[in-house]
């Protein structure tokens, strides 16, 4: 397979393959760009204008939310505004749906290259676009892109993106889990001029709305997007009038330059090397029982980061993403881990990042692959491993170590789609939004955040149960955080939750599932930390729930109910839930960090008291012995842990060790040291030699391989969903039994070389 770096640039035009902007944009001569940025701006004016620009973007986002008023905009915050320079570099994007940032600059650059001559780019124009091969996560994310002109010159761009309820396709909501290609999905629009000379082109608007099952809602959202762009454009022009165009442009460029500088400062403190992660995605179409491999390689070469996806499975079924979707996913983690101190200005970092995937793969699919489910499947499976590879790179620096984060919850979205007639006698269709409650993975110096949201949407909110029950014919039996759902570790991953309901005041509801990550955990931990729970559907038919209601005894868990359990598949279409049938869905939680045997026993005791960890897991995974009063028995715990560590060592722990001080720590239990003029990895606890730094330290470790179910108490039997066995591999220090790393793999896949640092001996 060929990477995009080996493909002629003109073929990467957004038609068959995703658009990749060339180094130099080909822009029509008649379009005049304003490029002069003042270089002599005093620090005071810079800060005043910088803050004003940030607020322009905030006001832009708030305007969209206000005018739209839809639950998508207000709760899920599935929108994002941006400001870009005249040539499409990011100045700012907003704190809402982070995926949407990565697709914005490609859209702007494509318009600059393709629309300058015909139909032209002029003052008062705006372009509508949602073509995922030009730049969109999926068709439902519709962008409105507005060039801002000053005295006849293109000064900058303001843009926004807002998820639409429905823009056509074979499934209401335009998420089409059974589509075979893009022709069966929502309308796909390369950038078209929908506003011309400050007037909406009614013909184009009608063409757009015609595809939707909910044209009124789409029309209102279009007004919201329009109002947002107008507000942002007016504010920027007010700044230009007040401070002058060169001054404002100078500030924009310096915002990017400063962010670039901060990014380079970070790169300069890190070693060169290669970091890899590998994960799996399940069920690409109804009936599919395979797992599809997704690989991510991060290469750091001097002042450049290169991301690649070779080894990833070919595009298939209805689970793919395009180039811009993959790139946008990676940018989410890049921004959060490396640019969080630059107020959402990734433009500076992007000058030093290359995206070099292989077209034709699941997360860099060619037209006309189905991509409507991208954000909840292919993009999530692209994003989350990015946390791992970047975190492992950043870990080498003691300061940046504080910024890293394990994979969080809802790393694949377990979809619960249902429809029917509600308690008010009206037809309805709904996607249960509860999994947005997610969880945040563990940090290098602290626990993750229980139900702390999905990291890709940092300010989302899930609806109250009372909100959901008002509009839909459901009665929730519970929504609770799940014990043991967070990945175990020295620092525990955040807990996720489970929602459980029955139909209420309706004869039945009709459901679909769409999920992945139910057999193979996708929120893997890091540096010895364990994976979080998988997604889980639970379904029990004909329960005794109404009899329990009659005797005033509510259940706390679906397992307490009598009835007939039934397995649900990952894309099970059109199954019926009757009022005595109980349905529950748990979403994946946050991965753990570090060896669980290193967790403070008192913390584990508190976890048990606060229902975060079960007593069984406290002993089995954390090696903690609890006393009768629930406190940790320190002596018994130390003895148990020591005994278990001894069982893991090789040759009684008599292995070669390396003396001297560590040059650095590559992971929590993996150090590098000089050894006879060469650089070796070694155990950070006992100095056991784990071989030359360019080799794979895992090969020198004691490996233990088990069924994946051993990794988290919730995982269960993989055969319910997939045919090939996933395994759980643990790598222990041969000298002292410390846990150095874990990995989840398809049984036949080789041991992953997750770290290859290029550490010079000098």
């Amino acid at each position: 397979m060929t990477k995009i770096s080996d493909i002629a640039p003109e073929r990467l035009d957004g038609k068959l393959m995703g658009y990749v902007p060339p180094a130099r944009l080909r822009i029509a001569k008649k379009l005049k760009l304003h490029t002069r940025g003042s270089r002599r701006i005093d620090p005071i004016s810079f800060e005043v204008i910088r803050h004003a620009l940030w607020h322009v973007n905030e006001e832009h986002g708030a305007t969209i939310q206000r005018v739209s008023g839809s639950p998508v905009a207000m709760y899920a915050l599935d929108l994002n505004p941006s400001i870009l320079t005249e040539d499409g570099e990011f100045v700012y994007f907003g704190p809402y749906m982070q995926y949407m940032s990565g697709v914005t600059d490609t859209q702007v650059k494509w318009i600059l290259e393709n629309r300058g001559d015909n139909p032209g780019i002029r003052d008062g124009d705006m372009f509508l676009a949602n073509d995922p091969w030009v730049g969109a996560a999926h068709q439902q994310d519709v962008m409105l892109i507005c060039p801002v002109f000053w005295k006849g010159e293109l000064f900058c761009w303001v843009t926004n993106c807002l998820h639409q309820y429905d823009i056509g396709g074979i499934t209401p909501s335009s998420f089409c889990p059974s589509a075979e290609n893009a022709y069966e999905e929502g309308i796909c629009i390369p950038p078209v001029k929908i506003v011309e000379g400050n007037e909406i082109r009614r013909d184009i608007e009608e063409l757009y709305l015609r595809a939707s099952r909910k044209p009124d809602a789409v029309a209102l959202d279009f007004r919201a997007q329009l109002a947002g762009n107008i507000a942002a454009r007016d504010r920027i022009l007010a700044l230009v009038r007040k401070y002058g165009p060169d001054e404002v442009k100078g500030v924009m460029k310096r915002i990017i330059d400063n962010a670039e500088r901060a990014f380079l400062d970070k790169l300069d403190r890190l070693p060169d090397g290669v970091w890899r992660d590998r994960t799996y995605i399940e069920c690409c179409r109804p009936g599919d029982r395979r797992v599809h491999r997704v690989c991510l390689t991060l290469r750091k070469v001097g002042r450049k980061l290169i991301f690649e996806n070779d080894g990833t499975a070919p595009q298939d079924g209805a689970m793919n993403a395009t180039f811009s979707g993959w790139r946008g996913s990676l940018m989410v983690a890049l921004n959060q881990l490396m640019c969080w101190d630059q107020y959402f200005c990734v433009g500076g970092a992007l000058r030093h990042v290359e995206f070099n995937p292989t077209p034709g793969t699941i997360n860099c699919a060619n037209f006309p692959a189905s991509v409507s489910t991208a954000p909840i499947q292919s993009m999530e499976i692209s994003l989350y491993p990015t946390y791992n590879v970047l975190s492992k790179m950043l870990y080498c620096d003691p300061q940046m170590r504080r910024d890293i984060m394990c994979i969080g919850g809802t790393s694949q979205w377990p979809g619960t789609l249902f429809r029917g007639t509600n308690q008010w006698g009206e037809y309805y269709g709904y996607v249960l939004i509860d999994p947005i409650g997610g969880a945040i993975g563990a940090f290098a110096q602290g626990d993750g955040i229980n139900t702390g949201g999905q990291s890709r949407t940092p300010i989302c909110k899930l609806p109250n149960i009372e909100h959901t029950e008002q509009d839909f014919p459901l009665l929730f039996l519970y929504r609770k955080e799940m014990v043991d759902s967070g990945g175990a570790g020295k620092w525990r991953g955040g807990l996720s939750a489970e929602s459980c309901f029955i139909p209420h005041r309706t004869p039945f509801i009709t459901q679909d599932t769409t999920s992945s990550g139910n057999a193979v955990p996708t929120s893997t931990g890091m540096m010895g930390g364990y994976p979080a729970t998988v997604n889980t559907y639970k379904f029990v038919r004909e329960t005794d729930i109404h009899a329990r209601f009659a005797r005033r005894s509510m259940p706390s868990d679906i397992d307490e109910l009598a009835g007939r359990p039934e397995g649900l598949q990952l894309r099970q279409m059109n199954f019926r839930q009757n009022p005595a049938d109980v349905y529950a869905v748990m979403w994946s939680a946050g991965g753990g960090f570090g060896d669980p045997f290193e967790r403070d026993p008192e913390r584990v005791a508190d976890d048990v008291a606060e229902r975060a960890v079960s007593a069984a897991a406290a002993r089995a995974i954390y090696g903690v012995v609890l006393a009768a009063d629930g406190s940790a028995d320190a002596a018994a715990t130390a003895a148990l842990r020591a005994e278990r560590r001894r069982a893991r060592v090789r040759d009684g722990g008599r292995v070669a060790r390396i003396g001297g001080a560590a040059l650095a720590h590559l992971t929590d239990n993996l150090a590098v040291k000089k050894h006879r003029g060469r650089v070796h990895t070694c155990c950070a606890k006992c100095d056991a030699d784990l071989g030359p730094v360019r080799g794979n330290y895992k090969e020198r470790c004691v490996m233990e391989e088990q069924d994946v179910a051993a990794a988290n108490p919730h995982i269960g039997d993989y055969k319910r969903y997939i045919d090939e066995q996933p395994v759980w591999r643990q790598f222990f220090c041969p000298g002292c039994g410390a846990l150095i790393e874990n990995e989840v793999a398809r049984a036949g896949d080789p041991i992953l070389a997750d770290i290859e640092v290029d550490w010079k001996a000098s």
Partner: protein
Amino acid sequence: MKHYLVGVDIGGTFTDCVVLDQDGGITATKAPSTPGNFADGMIDALTVAAERLGLPFGEFLGRIRVLTHGTTVGTNALIQRKGAKVGLITTRGIEDAIHIMRGSRGIHSRDLDKLVHFPESQKPVPIVPKRLIEGVSERVDCFGEVVVPLNEDEVRAAVARLLAAGVEAIGVCFLWSFKHKAHEHRVREIIGEMAPQLFVSCSVDIAPKWGEYERTTATALNAYLGPVMARYLENLAARLQAAGYRHPLSIAQCGGGSIPLDRALEAPLLTLDSGPVSGVTGSVFLGRLMGTPNIITTDMGGTSFDVGIIFEHQPAYSFVADVAQYEYFLPKVDIQAIGAGGGSMARVDAATRTLQVGPQSAGAAPGPVCYGRGGTVPTVTDADVVLGYIDPDNFLGGRIRLDRAAATAAIAAQAKQLGLSVMETAAGIARIAEFKMADIIRKTTVQKGFDPRDFVLYAFGGAGPVHASVFGAELGVKKVVIPLRHIASTWCALGAASADILHVYEQVDIQVSPFDVARANRSLAALEAQARARMDKDGIARSRRRYAFSVDMRHKGQINEVEVPLPGGRLTAALLASLRERFYVRYEQLYGHGSSYRNARLELVTLRLRASAETPRPKLAKARTLTATIPAAAKRPARPVYWAELKKTRPTPIYDGALLRPGNRIAGPAVVETTDTTVVIHPRRTLRVDAYGNFEILFAA
């Protein structure tokens, strides 16, 4: 014989007291707050007032008609986590609602740069740990119908476990309880049988609103504060009574009015934020007097900056409040805390040669460098001192002596990194702070659908008048008013004194159009009955009662709710059409032209009654004549002040604000000093003293 209206406001640093007599005489006093027992500071401030009036303490108290008290005791207990040990009883299955927090981490008023920096983005420590949350069997559905009757055996067992665990208060919140109150009230009875003295808070009595997370949070917070507040208020009331105060103590509440002591004891949550809200209440009062319907209020202190909005004489309301990352339901005057006030720290990034101000704050400790309490990072207050705006020997009437040399040295170090002069840097810190404030005030104004150009800006608090003329001009407001110069820094206490009695009653009754008018009217009548019972109990004459009804409506399928007044207090077929129209008008005003959606059905969500009773009105003295002549005594020795507009330091006239007379005008550059604050008049601005003694700052056209 003179009698008095008194407002007392306890802040973090000072306890302020304002005494008004029937002729418009005003006495303002301050005493240091006493965090050990805040009642001491309050008695101190009242004692100073009595001395100032030349009255024995007992006689002074005996002459007070109404004493309204705004207190920060609740807020302090919350921030220092010194509330009660609380147990929570809830519907089995939703025990974790206040831990899940709707999957959000409480991002209100947090630094944006921490938003995606998850290691610094933890949820707050839960008010109630999981081990003290008990789920019991009961269930009501969205129609308010009982699906599972309350299991009283489980309730008793749960209460027994909580009591055994040593809880000092219990909160009770069930799903859909606002549609069916009996289950919560039955639990209250059972607890009463088992532990008669225990503080119990039921959600339907504190926040009968739709949404279990915010309702449970309100209930748990109320229980958390209950015992603390009871100890404080009962002690205070007894001390005042013993000293000679003869009327019921009245407590300022966050809805913009006051409540009687017994209501404050059962709903202490109402007192959170009541201090800053009183500032808005006072502004409403003054705005009516001066004929200023639209006001942006700004209260900039040493460690805080609060913004409120008054439109057509009504303060903007919010119905979801937040404190320490928790969100809870409570109808309150909307106050946005937008920054750190004078304590905002300035930081230089030498690599990029950039200067940032805030959002980090030096707080009260160590505070600005010039306080000499160990602060090393220069703040806005330090810049003010270096520039010459603030006289280091006369800060807060000389109560704190400031170290100008230390502030200058700290800023000089930053100036060197930036390649600017010390004065340029100090002026830059002030300018960045002022422009940031303008950006954020603008945002909060625009988000409510208002244009700042239609507003007058009121600046109070110790640090506000120093900077208000710049951020006011940048915002584009008509003018800046520093209200009642002699009490600008005790403005919240005046607000407390001017507060009406206010009770807000709400009932959620979700209906989709076409509305069932009879059903809505039954709910409205029930609200009115609640209000009537309350007013009867307090012996409030019928003629003093004011009932203002309103409904919250929205487009079906959307989130934005709009409060629409309901004159007459009942729905009629005739009123429905005008109600719809008012909804659309208000909706578009708030959310933008073209944003309403006339094809959609409307949804009625909450019915509301604000029942108020006027209290004796403070009277403000108004000068009969205006004079242009500035009294010679008002002129103080000039001192050098740096003016960024002129790019130089020049000797600047200084005035004693207390001695200026109505009608006086002062052209900038100049500085006017009062006991508690400093008014900075930049070049091209004019200060005018109006007939009430307010300072107005006018911008050159």
